[in-house]
């Protein structure tokens, strides 16, 4: 058992006449989908299926039903930074974004680096989390890069994998030990790639915009050189690594080369790196646009998109990183890194990449669910007999980000003020309806 949440009892639901799209099962057309006791029990031509009386009806006509999204990279800030986010608000945000499972990072206060901390957190999630949450434990004690955590015991306690996210594993020797120990403990090693000697005190991408603004830059090679190093180590030790939040063209190349050599490597990209560049910072020196890795150039953005198309990039992950308003309402250089992303993930990618025809809708749905496989979770599928993990989306609906607030406790969203297409109307996670958009009418079958 590696996912934890507050179970609300399985639901009986009819999603009526939605356009069902699941790239993995090949289904792509209007169907009724029936969920009984939390399990998908029927998929058929609209109006042809028997349903239990009392089942909740979700009107799907003119709307799309996808397998629920899975995010292998979020920050829920619990324990210790609950003023930014907690398990309740963070999983509400996830459900509102169409996610049916998320994986929380361990860079909390204290760090999730011991089985006792992890067990307490899991218990907490059983009381508060709206959707299933998995927890990563840290690779090194206190994220300090000096001693391995008790990885085997942490795995027994439910750690889904290991990461020092927020920081790189700075020395090659330490990562090598973790890769060796992975043979005993199992679990993926998720890596935040950055050479601190190159990124220094950088606050944005090193390039024309940083030069103009006089801001210290983080060069692309700070990321790609570490990926190359770690891919070499993973290959040598026959280990398995997952590269978090790719941001640069050189990084995509480094991952592609490693994959070609047969290294056990996967990688993710975030919606903001797919849709924004450092030019946004030139227009508006907004701390919501400050994240690590930073927004880079148009060439980098195009390389990330191409990576999704050709399979180099395995999945889309948000790196949802909430920060309190007063923490972000400071000069750019003083602000903490990070943007929230759960509530806007689908809509931002749909608006900026699917509508203009850059990416297929099916590919985007596939990449928003593929994060599950990266962390050894079952990938949600729309098929009879599967536990219901579904998201109902109105692709026509437009909404202004932040206009009616956020489910997240924090409002540092880099898309704030943007009008986006594609609104999540309802989310069914682990067999139960966990989110309904507030204007979405409830009705029951008779």
């Amino acid at each position, binding site marked *: 058992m590696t996912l934890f949440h507050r179970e609300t009892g399985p639901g009986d639901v009819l999603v009526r006449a939605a356009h069902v799209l699941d790239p993995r099962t090949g289904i792509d057309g209007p169907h009724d989908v029936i969920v009984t006791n939390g399990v998908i029990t029927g998929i058929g031509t609209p109006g042809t299926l028997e349903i239990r009386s009392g089942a909740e009806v979700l009107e799907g006509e003119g709307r799309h039903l996808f397998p629920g999204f899975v995010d292998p990279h979020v920050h829920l800030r619990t324990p210790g930074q609950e003023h930014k986010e907690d398990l309740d608000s963070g999983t509400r945000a996830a459900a509102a974004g169409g996610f049916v499972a998320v994986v929380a990072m361990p860079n909390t206060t204290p760090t999730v680096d011991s089985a006792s901390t992890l067990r307490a957190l899991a218990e907490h999630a059983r009381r508060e989390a709206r959707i299933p949450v998995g927890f990563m434990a840290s690779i090194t004690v206190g994220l300090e890069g000096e001693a391995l955590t008790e990885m085997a015991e942490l795995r027994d306690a439910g750690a889904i994998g290991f990461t020092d996210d927020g920081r790189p594993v700075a020395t090659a020797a330490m990562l090598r030990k973790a890769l060796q120990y992975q043979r005993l403990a199992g679990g993926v090693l998720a890596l935040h790639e950055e050479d601190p000697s190159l990124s220094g005190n950088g606050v944005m991408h*090193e*390039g*024309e*915009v*940083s*030069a*103009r*603004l*006089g*801001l210290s*830059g983080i*060069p692309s090679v700070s990321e790609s050189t570490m990926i190359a190093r770690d891919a070499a180590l993973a290959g040598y030790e026959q280990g398995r690594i997952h590269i978090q939040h790719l941001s640069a063209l050189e990084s995509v190349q480094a991952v592609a080369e490693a994959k070609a050599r047969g290294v056990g490597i996967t990688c993710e990209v975030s919606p903001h790196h797919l849709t924004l560049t450092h030019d946004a910072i030139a227009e*508006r*020196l*907004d*701390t*919501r646009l400050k994240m690590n890795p930073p927004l880079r150039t148009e060439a980098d953005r195009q390389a990330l998109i191409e990576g999704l198309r050709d399979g180099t990039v395995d999945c889309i992950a948000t790196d949802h990183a909430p*920060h309190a*308003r*007063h923490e*972000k*309402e*400071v*000069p*750019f*250089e*003083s*602000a903490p890194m990070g943007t929230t992303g759960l509530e806007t993930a689908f809509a931002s990618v749909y608006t900026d990449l699917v509508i203009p025809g850059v990416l297929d809708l099916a590919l985007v749905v596939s990449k928003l669910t593929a994060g599950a496989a990266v962390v050894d979770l079952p990938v949600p599928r729309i098929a009879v007999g599967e536990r219901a993990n579904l998201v109902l989306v109105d692709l026509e609906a437009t909404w202004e980000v932040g206009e009616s607030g956020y489910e997240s406790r924090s*409002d*540092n969203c880099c898309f*704030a003020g943007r009008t986006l297409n594609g609104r999540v109307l309802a989310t069914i996670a682990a067999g139960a309806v966990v989110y309904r958009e507030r204007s979405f009418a409830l009705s029951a079958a008779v």
Partner: protein
Amino acid sequence: MRHLLSIEDLERADIERILDRARSFTELTDREVKKVPALRGRRVLNLFYEASTRTRSSFELAAKALSADVVNFSAGGSSVEKGESLKDTVQTLSAYRPDLICIRTPYVGAAALVAGWTTASVVNAGDGKHEHPTQALLDVHTLRERLGSIDQMSIWIVGDVTHSRVARSCILAFTRMGAKVTVCGPPTLIPRGIESLGCSVEYTLDRLGDADVVYALRMQHERMTDAFIPSLREYAARYQIDGRRLHPRQLLMHPGPVNRGVELAAEVIDSPQSLIGEQVAAGVVTRMAVLYELLAGRDAPDRSAIASAPTPQPA
């Protein structure tokens, strides 16, 4: 014009209008009573989070010469030391109903942030490594007074460009006024992508002879700790402007304070080609012109405007 935050916000005509007015103020400084009542009753706050000699004193003199009331705040000894945020400090000081806040901070973009938190006009007196627009204006003023126009002139900015807000504002201002700007310095101190400001880049002084004006930047000793250059000795050997490198027809500028014997040799500092003293003098009249531009003819900020002031950067 409401604020002066960046040279990027100024057109050539704006710069000319401000500097024409600066010229008209020059005559005032030669009088026995160096004061006009243009801004009588107006309040100017100087809020300095970093050390400053020239900028702060010249802003104070400029405000006083226009009969405004001036109060100086510095980070040392104030509530800033007790951990008060920039926003809280600015909103607190705004309760004194200043007409203008002149602010220097070590943070890029801070002056623009402040402009969103107050109804006062804001002048950027230096925001980190970003810009120092009044320095660039006084430099253009100095050159205009000496040369009439800098159209088509070649200006070389030599030294640590990476860490220099003066360089960024000057590149923008000089090119706005029609000059061709070249930046020159060790490759470790020229930021990648600086050409996008409209300048060209050289790593040696070999072609310094092309320049009409040589603008040397201050070499900041503290940069040595980050090993941007091997030694000041090697820097001076390659980049110091001295009597041998400076042609008699070239003019020399420097924003001060000068490291004698590092970026400039003593013989050029005090040479007739040096405009350094004129730059300092230009500071007062240029800043008078800026204050006049932002405040004269504009009503004092309305209290009701505080509620409707645009939200700055609601991160």
